[in-house]
Structure formats: structure tokens, C-alpha cells
């Protein structure tokens, strides 16, 4: 290789490489473990000090591992396990900020509230929400949705009407389908007129499971 001088290929080079990474280059060496630990400390600190604008972490749930993301303002995204982490993070980087780090401690309150909710010990969420991924019409629809109490349901038409568009139940359905913070903004509490389940971004099985957890009366 023209880039390498003769001196680079000798015993010095060997010794330098070995000295830096005594355990060898294969697998998890002490060096890579130390680097991973330092990176972890960095991410948590950057999030705690506000230098990072978005924090995310995996959160366990009966549906599998969810991805939760929060800004300084509050929870901004909750993704079901089927969504690829990379594409969720890529979209957050474009829409909000590329200053995104994995900082589980920042998501502790979200994790606790979800755990209590799934265990049937919590009926409403108190963590602050960041609505910035939601457009103006979606906000009206999801604000109306957020008012539906635990165990209650509304129809798409009723939610549309609450949102100020009495004839917009299809548009309301679309807004509900693109809810970036499902479960916490309870779009599962919106059904068809007459009680049929309608649709759900996370799949109808989960919608039914959530409604049963809450003891809602469904058709």
C-alpha cells in the first residue's frame, strides 16, 4: 500500500496496536467496555444538562419493548415494537433535532407510569407531553381524545365534533391513526358509532387488550 511507509509495518506498529488493546482485537475487550461505559455516562449527562434535545429509551410493556422519546417539554413519541428504532430516530432527528441520545434515566417517570398503567394501578398519566409532532387539526382531535376518561369510549364522529369538525370523522380517524404518543394519548378509546373497534395503529388486538384492561364496554 502506497500510504504505508516501510517503518509502519514493523515491530513498532505491532507493539502499539497490542499496547492499546492488550486483550486483542476480537470481541469485547476491556477497552471497548470502558468506551461503552464512558459513552453511556456522556449520554445521560448530556440529557440531564439539556445539551441533548431528545432523549430516548426502551420501555418494557405487555406488547414487547416500546421506544419512548422525550424532549425538555415532555414525552414526544411512543413507538410500538414493530417500528424500526432506526427509522423512528431518523424521523425524530429530521423533525425535532439530531441532538438525540439514549438516556434511560430521563424516561424513568414515563417508564414508571406505563408500568403502573399496564398493571392496572394507574388510570391517568401525569407525565408532561410535547405536542410538537402533531399538526393543528391533529392537536384538536387528540386534545379531545385525551379528555376521554379511563374506561370510557367515544365514536369517531363524537371526537370530530369535539374537535370542531362535526363532519370530519374520516379526518379525525386519520389524525388518531398517526397519534405519535399512543396509549398515553388514549386513541384506543375511540370506536366506530355502534361500538365496532374501527382501526388502531398498533393493531386491533392491542386496542381490544387496552379496552379490556380499562374495563370499557365494547361491542
Amino acid at each position, binding site marked *: 500500500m502506497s*500510504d504505508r*511507509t516501510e*517503518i*509502519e509495518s*514493523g*515491530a*513498532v*506498529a505491532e*507493539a*502499539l*496496536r*497490542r*499496547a*492499546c*488493546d*492488550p486483550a486483542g482485537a476480537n470481541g469485547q475487550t476491556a*477497552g*471497548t467496555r*470502558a*468506551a*461503552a461505559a*464512558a*459513552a453511556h*455516562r*456522556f*449520554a445521560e*449527562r*448530556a440529557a440531564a444538562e439539556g*445539551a*441533548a434535545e*431528545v432523549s*430516548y429509551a426502551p420501555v418494557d410493556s405487555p406488547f414487547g419493548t416500546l421506544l419512548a422519546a422525550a424532549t425538555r417539554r415532555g414525552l414526544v413519541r411512543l413507538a410500538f415494537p414493530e417500528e424500526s428504532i*432506526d427509522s423512528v*430516530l*431518523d424521523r*425524530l*432527528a*429530521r423533525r425535532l*433535532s*439530531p*441532538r*438525540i*441520545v*439514549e438516556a434511560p434515566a430521563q424516561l424513568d417517570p414515563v417508564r414508571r407510569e406505563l408500568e403502573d398503567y399496564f398493571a392496572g394501578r394507574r388510570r391517568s398519566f401525569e407525565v408532561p407531553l410535547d405536542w410538537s409532532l402533531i399538526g393543528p387539526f391533529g392537536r384538536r382531535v387528540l386534545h379531545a381524545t385525551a379528555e376521554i376518561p379511563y374506561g370510557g369510549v367515544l365514536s369517531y364522529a363524537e371526537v370530530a365534533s369535539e374537535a370542531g369538525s362535526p363532519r370530519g370523522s374520516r379526518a379525525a380517524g386519520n389524525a388518531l391513526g398517526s397519534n405519535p404518543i399512543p396509549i398515553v394519548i388514549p386513541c384506543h378509546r375511540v370506536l366506530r358509532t355502534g361500538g365496532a373497534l374501527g382501526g388502531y395503529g398498533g393493531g386491533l388486538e392491542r386496542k381490544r387488550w387496552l379496552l379490556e384492561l380499562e374495563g370499557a364496554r365494547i361491542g
Partner: protein
Amino acid sequence: MSDALPPFQRFLDGHRDIVWRFLLSTVGSAEAEDCFQETFMAALCAYPRLRADSNLRAWVLTIAHNKALDAHRGRARRALPMAEPAAVDTRAAAAPEDPRDETLWGAVGELPARQRSAVALRFLADLPHREIAAAIGCSEEAARRSLHEGLAKLRKVVPA
């Protein structure tokens, strides 16, 4: 997406090892942690202004090189007035298991800062000369020379 910067965490995951190795070999383990934190904090602050097609590896190693220089200057200031900054002990730093490596670390620690960085960037970070030049802020030819001179000094302590 090729036209957007990756989320910072992906950048951090992809470069933490190389930065850690570089700092371990240039400032030693006692200061590697602080320099690592400062390097990535500076990177995070500047990150959104970067172009998506930037050479992220050379960029972050440039920052790490500057933090390493700051650490050396700080040590020089704290040292006794007569002490040579270059004589600072980096041997304790890497805690080599092989006694031959101890001599080598001692010799790396005695290299002038630019040579030390050039050697570390070449062997620990595997950077080509062009990127070494970008990271330490000199011409490619000067980087090649620093590397060559640094290696020549090291060769004296390493039995062939």
C-alpha cells in the same frame, strides 16, 4: 437518509471506541475520561451545524486532538516550573500487561504532542495520512513527517 445527519447517538456509538483509544494513548487513562466527555460535549454542541456529508471520524478526532492538547497544557501549567511537559508520565496510564509495552508507552509519552497524535491516529484510529493532517491541522506532508519521526523514535525502544 443520506441528506440528513444521523441521530447523535448513532454517531456516538460509531466513534466512541476510536476516540477512547486515541485519548488513552495520548493523555493516559487518568485523563481519558474527562477528555472523552469534553470531546463529545463539544461535538454535540456543534453537531447540528455540520454538513451531512462531513467526514465525522476525522471531525471528532480533531476535537479529541484539541482536548488532548488542552490536557497537556493544563498538566504543564500544574507541573513544577522546571519540569519538561514531555516528561509527563503516561505509563501509569495504559497499565500495560506486557513489560515491553511499558517501555513503549514511556516512549510514546515522551514524543512531542503532534508526533504523539500522529502516531495514535495512524495506529489506534487507523486514519490515512490525509485525515491525520485534517485532525491535527497541518499539511499531509507534515503529518507524514510527524508520523515518520515519531515512529523512528519509538523504534529505538522496540526490539525488532
